[in-house]
């Protein structure tokens, strides 16, 4: 047990060192790309807390990213708030907004949350068009200054590390046990004294708030522009696909999922099929169906089996 823990801490340290040294080896362009991978890392991490550990499905995390992103853009453009100071604000505002959706939808089976969050993802991009005085309409709104790629990389991965540690602390103890009990059987969890509404709402709120921070950083990574069509339904679907490909219920898989979602669009357009954006959708769709059919525990589960298999021999 102690050996396993030490091994895990060792891997964590190695990953942290690699991530800390990486930007000095990368070109400016690739720093920006690695920062975008970090944005997806945070969003998928949040979704994994909800879907992987509590068994509730959200198809609306793109909408929460929009709420976080617009928080950052509006605070910076209209109130000249420091960009880093907008991140906790995005966290808090997205958490509060998620309760509006979560409280009605979480009282029933998981299908209702999936329905409600899908509806959220489709309808939220309409709101900036209606309230264009605050949000700049379809042109979007821009932060006062757009940060450079190295700054972006540092802040994104620092947030990623902080939120990863937060998720680990939340999931390792009493609350994490309650989450998993809800996932495995709601009825058994209730009869063991787990208050379903409290824990489901908490998981949904935390999960959405993570997406909110990811949305803030997403806006900063697109030159500080928040635009409605950046946050369409496909963003929500991609995050769910990233979480599923990575393996639900595994914090390590999140890194794989983020790299997959973040890097696929970078494949050169000279590659047939995958190079075009429609081709990528085909790949995303096919791959997630294949993963669900062949590797239901995702890439993380497959790697876990390989490692365990080798340890035994």
């Amino acid at each position, binding site marked *: 047990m102690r050996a396993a823990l030490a091994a895990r801490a060792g891997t964590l340290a190695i990953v942290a060192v690699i991530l800390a040294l990486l930007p000095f080896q990368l070109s400016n362009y690739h720093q920006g790309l690695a920062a975008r991978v970090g944005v997806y890392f945070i969003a998928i991490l949040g979704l994994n807390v909800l*879907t992987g550990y509590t*068994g509730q*499905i959200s*198809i609306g995390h793109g909408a929460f990213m929009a709420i976080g992103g617009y928080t950052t853009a509006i605070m910076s453009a209209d109130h000249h708030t420091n960009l880093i100071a907008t991140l906790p604000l995005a966290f808090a505002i997205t958490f509060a907004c998620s309760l*509006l*959706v979560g409280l*009605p*939808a979480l*009282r*029933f*089976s*998981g*299908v*209702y949350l*999936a*329905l*409600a969050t*899908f*509806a*959220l993802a*489709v*309808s*939220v991009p*309409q*709101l900036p*068009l*209606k309230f264009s005085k605050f949000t700049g309409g379809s042109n979007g709104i821009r932060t006062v200054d757009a940060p450079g790629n190295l700054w972006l990389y540092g802040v994104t991965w620092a947030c990623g590390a902080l939120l990863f540690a937060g998720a680990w602390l939340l999931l390792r103890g009493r609350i994490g046990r309650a989450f998993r009990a809800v996932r495995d059987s709601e*009825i058994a969890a209730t009869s063991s004294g787990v208050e379903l509404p409290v824990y489901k709402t908490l998981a949904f709120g935390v999960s959405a708030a993570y997406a909110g921070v990811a949305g803030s950083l997403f806006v900063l990574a697109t030159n500080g522009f928040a635009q409605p069509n950046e946050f369409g*339904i*496909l963003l929500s*679907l*991609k995050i*769910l*696909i990233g979480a*599923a490909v990575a393996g*639900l219920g595994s914090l390590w898989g999140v890194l794989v999922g983020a790299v997959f979602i973040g890097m696929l669009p970078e494949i050169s357009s000279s590659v047939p099929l995958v190079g*075009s954006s*429609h*081709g*990528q*959708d*085909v*790949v*995303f*769709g*096919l*791959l*997630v*169906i294949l993963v*669900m*059919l062949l590797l*239901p525990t995702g890439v993380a589960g497959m790697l876990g089996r390989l490692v365990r298999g080798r340890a035994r021999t």
Partner: protein
Amino acid sequence: MDATDTPLGAFLRPTPLLLAAGAVFLLVGSLTSTIFAQQTVAGLAQGAIFASLALALVLIYRATGVINFAQGEMAMGTTYIAYQLTLWGLSYWLAFFCSLGIAFVLGALIQATVIRPVQHKSVIAVVIVTIGLFILIDGLVAWKWGGDIKFMDAPFGNAVYHGGGVAFARQDIGTLAVTVVSVLVLWAFFRFTKAGLGLRAGAVRPAAARLVGVRVDALLAVGWGLAAMLGAISGLMTEPSQFLQPTMMQPILLYAFAAAVLGGLESPAGSVVGGLALGVFLNLIGQYVGFATSELRLPIAFAVLLGVLLLKPHGLFGRKEVRRV
């Protein structure tokens, strides 16, 4: 959680009373104002489209307890197939019926190849597979036909009928008629045919149905095929107003979700009534409430969905779900 648990829910309990009041309101309004009458008829036609997609969702939800998130994209895909058939020289209505047949086959194939293997694993697995189908169909259509808007012939022409000072678009009347006929045919299938009865039996008690010789797995594929056909009808009826584009069914899917929840996710009749009611409601609120501009149509439908979950979670026609430990 029963409807009576919330005080406002208890107030809304007598569904027939509510529906009768709504019908009287629409009738009186239509007799007093021609604009009101026009908006009501147009709303019913749009609602009929929501209703057929909602009915497709409810069919699958009743049989398997999951929502097919790809239902709208499947409808969009089959509408593109109909478009391709007209390009090849088929007349509109021939293409219409051919694409219904193709939709049935594709729906059944999808169930048998990618849904059946994960069906018994978890709701999450099925939902994620349907999300995969969503993005896959989206990508395939945009890849094959491109993202720009395409047009088909108007199925009912552009004629307008006048009656009592009110103008009725032939398109609206035709949409309503097609939906009513398809719902009636579906009802007859589930009421009078052996396959339909078997499908219902399989939905309620799969194990018992299997014991008396119902081929539940094969019938589930038939169910998916029928749902895909209904979806194709909603896609083809959406085309005259939204035209062909890969995103055409995404808003309609949201309206269909709201309609299905409003009617009660378990209730086919509810989804039809919910669709019609939502269509009329959105049109009237757009006409008479200045704040509710077209950008707010989707958010309003979303608010309806949340409001129903808060006040009357099992919808107008749904029943409280009872679960066994």
